[in-house]
């Protein structure tokens, strides 16, 4: 390896690329294409949701009223905050600030963890209320009263979508947490400088995408019927 090649390698240049700029462009294009595939993936689910909501609006409205809007709103703020800390961590990498980079990445993880914790609380509540399709579907009392007008069968459909959409989103969040942990470990070792921080940007884009999916999920699942 020549000295120039060694320097390039140290800077994180992979052998198949001619220079860092080409690698950076390839990485960015790559993550954008991946996000497009994620849009198509969630898109099929959103399209199915849209069809059934149009067909069974009353049931979807009733189901939505069973959810806890406050917890959902808190989670929305938490996730938006985590996108802020993620953006700040990218900025920290850009400005060669290793300490801030690590701190902001950890902050993002903490906020992500809070989101997942609240989600866990919500899921647990669904079991308590017996509105888990396929596993524990036996709504009673006030819950039954609000679900019955739209048709219990269609309400079960609503909750299926609730779990499928938020569950898939949560899985993506868990994957994101794993990626963040990997970034924290690499950042602490000093792998990222203002010349090379593509992985931070790439994970950042992924994290923002997962956040945006939630921004859609919140009104679609929690705010049906506009009683606020």
């Amino acid at each position, binding site marked *: 390896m020549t000295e120039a090649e060694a320097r390039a390698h140290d800077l994180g240049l992979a052998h*198949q690329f001619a220079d860092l700029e080409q690698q950076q462009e*390839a990485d960015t*294009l*790559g993550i954008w294409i991946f996000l497009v595939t994620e849009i198509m993936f969630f898109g099929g689910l959103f399209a199915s949701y849209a*069809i059934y909501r149009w067909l069974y609006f009353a049931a979807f409205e009733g189901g939505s009223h069973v959810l806890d809007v406050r917890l959902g709103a808190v989670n929305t703020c938490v996730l938006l905050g985590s996108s802020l800390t993620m953006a700040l961590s990218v900025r920290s990498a850009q400005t060669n600030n290793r300490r801030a980079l690590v701190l902001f990445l950890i902050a993002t993880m903490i906020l992500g963890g809070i989101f997942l914790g609240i989600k866990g609380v919500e899921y647990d509540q669904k079991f308590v209320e017996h509105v888990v*399709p396929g596993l524990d579907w036996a709504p009673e009392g006030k819950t039954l009263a609000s679900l019955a007008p739209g048709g219990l069968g269609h309400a079960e459909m609503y909750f299926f979508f609730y779990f499928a959409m938020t569950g898939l989103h949560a899985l993506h969040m868990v994957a994101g947490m794993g990626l963040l942990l990997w970034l924290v470990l690499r950042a602490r070792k000093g792998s990222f400088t203002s010349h090379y921080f593509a992985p931070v940007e790439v994970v950042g884009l992924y994290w923002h995408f997962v956040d945006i999916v939630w921004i859609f999920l919140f009104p679609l699942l929690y705010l049906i019927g506009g009683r606020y």
Partner: protein
Amino acid sequence: MSAATLEPRVHVGRNYLNADYGWKSWLFTLDHKRIALLYLVSITFFFIIGGSFAVLMRINLVEPQGAIVQPETYNKLFTLHGIVMIFFFLIPSIPAVLGNFLVPLMVGARDLAFPKLNLLSWYIYMAGGMFTLYSAIAGGVDTGWTFYTPYSSTYSNTQVTAVAIGVFITGFSSILTGLNFIVTIHKMRAPGLTWFRLPLFLWSMYATSVIMVLGTPVLAITIFLLALEHLFHVGIFSPALGGDPLLFQHLFWFYSHPAVYIMILPAMGVVSEIIACFARKRIFGYKIVAFSSVAIAVLGFLVWGHHMFVTGQSVYAGLIFSMLSFLVAIPSAIKVFNWTSTLYKGSISYEAPMLYALGFIGLFTMGGLTGLFLASLATDVHLNGTYFIVAHFHYIMVGGAVMGYLGGIHFWWPKISGRKYPNAWASLAAAIIFIGFNLTFFPQFILGYLGMPRRYAFYPAEFQVLNVMSSAGATVLGVGYLIPLIYLIWSMRYGPIAEPNPWGATGLEWKTSSPPPTENFAEIPVVREEAYAYAAEEAAGD
């Protein structure tokens, strides 16, 4: 191409095959060429499995009451034949074998953009394949490769979840391959290699990759929902809870129709390369052919409803899908005319790759024209769900895509292996395949029009003669496929050593050694000529 000459101690230089030894150097390789060979071995394995299922099916259909298997077994055979052939052979075949090998070479790069993702693709493919094999061994699946609900989600008690997981996982292999190709073609072209200097194989790979990236995720979510319904008995696709079985079909075909273009576009790309080389002429209407590939990819996303003309969907939806389905045929027709015109005033030679390419044009033309019968609403009513459909798609998939794949293997074999194979045997095999194929599938057009439905384990006796003809043809076809397996493996040890450019072809892959070194090129080439610079005034010399 003489018979194997025993050249004493031929010096075979350092190349990607002998750069390193041992199983670890293969299973942990990041070299796109080695990954291509990993795929070659695995898809050949799955082709043999899927083909064996087909053999059993055709033997069974020799007798009207079913000759060798019970109906339940037959239903599992056609299901797994479809799943294995489509997801584990056809969709990966050209992209994962020839694409992986050639895309970096053709753009003049040292590897794909993301070599680790490339290796991951193969492992994902194998994981999906293992799930599918498990489901076959643990009892099989009997839903048809189309998994229509509510049969698959509520009524079938076969290994639906296992095979759903298998197909779901393998989809990501497709997505990552497509992603890799798009980024590589966009960002890693050698200096001077503009878009309109790209070989048409790359235009096809690009169009295919766009479909893979946009369509496969929809299949993934569909299978995911199907598995959830099968496991938790929630009725999103079945009427019990107000679900809609047709929603499944829309979601399924939204991917599975573009999927057929994933299977045919690469073969069309191969054909362009072969015709240009063996007629020694630039493809007639290069830009038009390039744009046609893109048009097919775009239009291909708009026609899925033609699989659902008889489902009771609105007549107006039928009209729109019918019109769009007719339109998507036009770019394919344009390509056929351009390939034919390339032969005009060319200098044509008939080695095995050219025979496969010409066979493709003939059979694809027939298969494509029979698509018109199905795009046409009034005739589709009669033909849907019959053997006419089976014949139509086998003409395109086997007569088209498989012939294209075999042609590509034969064309680039010297580059990939560094060896040549006996052309006489190769030509004989091509002829046997062509004849066996037509004997197998042409009678099925007639069976379909007569009214014999598909997926029938037994049938009324009046259909027997045509079924026997078809099964006889399948035997010939099977023999035809075995022959290349033998001589290609033979050639790896005993075939004559290949020179860098045995066919005198243009293209960057031919400007490096056969086989290429691991880093592909000693120096990254600079491109100064148009694609297919065969003419005397253009040739930079061989």
